[in-house]
């Protein structure tokens, strides 16, 4: 056990998986000498050499397509796309090939690769550097989408993702990268991709969030319990696809009320999918309409006003109070 931030925890997972499995290699822009612009791949070039840690030409589509080719010949590439906003240049290779090669070759060519990328707002970044478009990838059959919320689960989930036989989009909440430290174990916790975590048990209402939004959600929980006497249950989704329907349904069947938080745009967002599943599986237990606290249906604004775009604890508290007041 050691205290570390999320960047260190991710680096530890990369280092350990590379040490354990020669098939694991790291590929991306500035991942070598520079150690990644957020330093997640720091030191890997020195340890594993340039045959396993590659700086590529500047081309996201090229990186993903090449990694697909490496994966279908048995390597386990871990791709870094410098910011998730740049993934759009690789959309074609992700959708047409990374996500479907196993299926279209009927199992002959599985694509065991991870695409890591920092996502989300809150760090006063320039245009195109704050997007939260996980819904695109959750909508794409053949992919898994994983979003950790803290150093400890980031460490274990990156291990699980690299060892997964299928392609994983691994969204790293960059607002959390260096935001806090946490005890990280020496060996990964056995978290399975596709399993959500109940981080607080409660009776009155279910709060669902993931990634960077866990922080304002937990802040809201503090306020709700201390100031308003509310006893919320909190679910950290961790895996957007596949989604842990059972944990969501079990919780909401108990509480009857639910608020979902994400920073991505609202329309056809992850909250919409969660509501659909609760509608299908927990309809008779619902005591109030399910509320969404999300980003607006606009492009991520320039950073001067990003605080007005990103959900915060106050708005989550308001949404919970409104949901609890519904009769």
């Amino acid at each position: 056990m050691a205290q570390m931030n999320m960047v260190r925890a991710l680096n530890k997972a990369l280092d350990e998986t590379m040490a354990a499995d020669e098939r694991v290699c790291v590929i991306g822009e500035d991942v070598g000498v520079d150690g990644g612009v957020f330093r997640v791949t720091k030191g890997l070039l020195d340890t594993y050499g340039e045959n396993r840690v590659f700086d590529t030409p500047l081309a996201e589509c090229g990186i993903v397509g090449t990694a697909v080719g490496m994966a279908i010949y048995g390597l386990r590439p871990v791709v870094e796309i410098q910011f998730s906003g740049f993934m759009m240049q690789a959309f074609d290779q992700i959708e047409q090939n990374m996500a479907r090669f196993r299926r279209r070759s009927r199992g002959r060519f599985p694509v065991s690769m991870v695409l890591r990328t920092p996502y989300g707002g809150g760090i006063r970044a320039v245009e195109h550097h704050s997007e939260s478009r996980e819904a695109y990838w959750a909508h794409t059959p053949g992919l898994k989408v994983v979003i950790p919320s803290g150093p400890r689960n980031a460490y274990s989930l990156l291990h699980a993702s690299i060892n997964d036989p299928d392609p994983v989009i691994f969204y790293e909440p960059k607002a959390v990268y260096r935001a806090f430290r946490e005890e990280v174990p020496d060996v990964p916790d056995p978290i399975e991709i596709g399993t959500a975590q109940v981080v607080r048990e409660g009776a009155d209402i279910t709060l669902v969030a993931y990634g960077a939004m866990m922080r304002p959600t937990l802040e809201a929980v503090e306020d709700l319990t201390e100031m308003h006497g509310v006893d919320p249950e909190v679910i950290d989704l961790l895996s957007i696809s596949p989604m842990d329907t059972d944990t969501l349904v079990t919780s909401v069947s108990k509480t009857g009320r639910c608020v979902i938080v994400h920073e991505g745009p609202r329309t056809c967002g992850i909250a919409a999918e969660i509501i659909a599943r609760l509608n299908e599986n927990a309809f008779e237990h619902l005591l109030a309409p399910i509320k969404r606290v999300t980003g607006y249906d606009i492009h991520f604004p320039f950073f001067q006003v990003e605080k007005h775009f990103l959900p915060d604890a106050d708005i989550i508290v308001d949404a919970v109070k409104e949901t609890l007041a519904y009769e």
Partner: protein
Amino acid sequence: MPVRTVLNTTIEHVSILDEDGNFDADLGRDLIPDDDAVRLYEHMSICRHFDEIAFKLQRSGRMGTYPENRGQEAASLGAAYVLRPDDWLVPCYRENTGLFWRGLPMEMILLHWMGDERGNQIAADLAMTPQAIPIGTQLLHAVGLAWASKYRGEDRISCTFFGDGATSEGDCHEALNFAANLNIPVVFLCQNNGWAISVPTKIQCSAPTLAQRGMAYGMPCVQCDGNDIFAVAKVVRDAAELARTEHRPTFIEAVTYRLGDHTTADDARRYRDQAEVDAWKKRDPLLRLRNYLSERTLWDDDREKALAARAKKEVAAAARRAEEIADPARTDMFDFLYATLSPDIEAQRSTARTSSLGVDPTQLDDARSSGIEEAV
């Protein structure tokens, strides 16, 4: 001197057996032994017949859209002939001759175009990827495959095929740039067949050759007569040697022509002159090789007749195998999506084609009727 020339260069065009039957004995020496030349001609002829039958299957409603290969038989075959059996072939969809030469059963291509996914289930011992339908995406996979081979310390290389249109795609340029700068052992074989559906090559590229696209990335590049199997064999052999020994890629432009429509859904008469097609018919790769063999008394009318009968029989058998395969199960489409299906997709799989996803179909009738009664 304030102005100086920093680059002067030339692009070579390789032709060994031209359309008039002239054969360059120097370049062609020890390239394709007579026995192999006969086998290659036979193979191309069978593939030509395969094309005709595939076209008829489509026209008679027994197959979906099909892209004829007619006129382009030499390019992928010349490559497959000189490459090692374990070198990766990364094709688009006009490489039947090369894939069949390597051992892909003909019915696999038919199944693919019949809309049966089992046509993509290539046996594990065949070093090839399924036909890539989106244009140009496969070049990057060839780079990745070759990179993985180098990473593993093997000397397998990859050879990817694409058309003139694909050279306009970003993926193509990214693949060339990666391979050249990172020393990846790939042979890029562009089949310039003159047309990307209705768009002529000049709209894809204003330069006099496509070959020089490779030069822009700092890799060797060459143009060859793509209807001359000797020329293709030579340039691919040289490129493969360079890739295998020095990890250097090569860009090859094989100049050929699509004698048929883009696919059976296209009508090329709308956009190109018959005179152009007729001129290219004289440069047909089959005609040329047949004349070569005849002049050397390696071929005659009797053998041609026997070959026609053999082609008919082999292709008919392949078509029969493709048509007689039992229908796939309705759950088949779910089965290769992930190594293990998530509970949600498993539920969709097990209840596929019931009106209410997630409901056990055996209980559906009861549930439905009791539900309706209660509602009434």
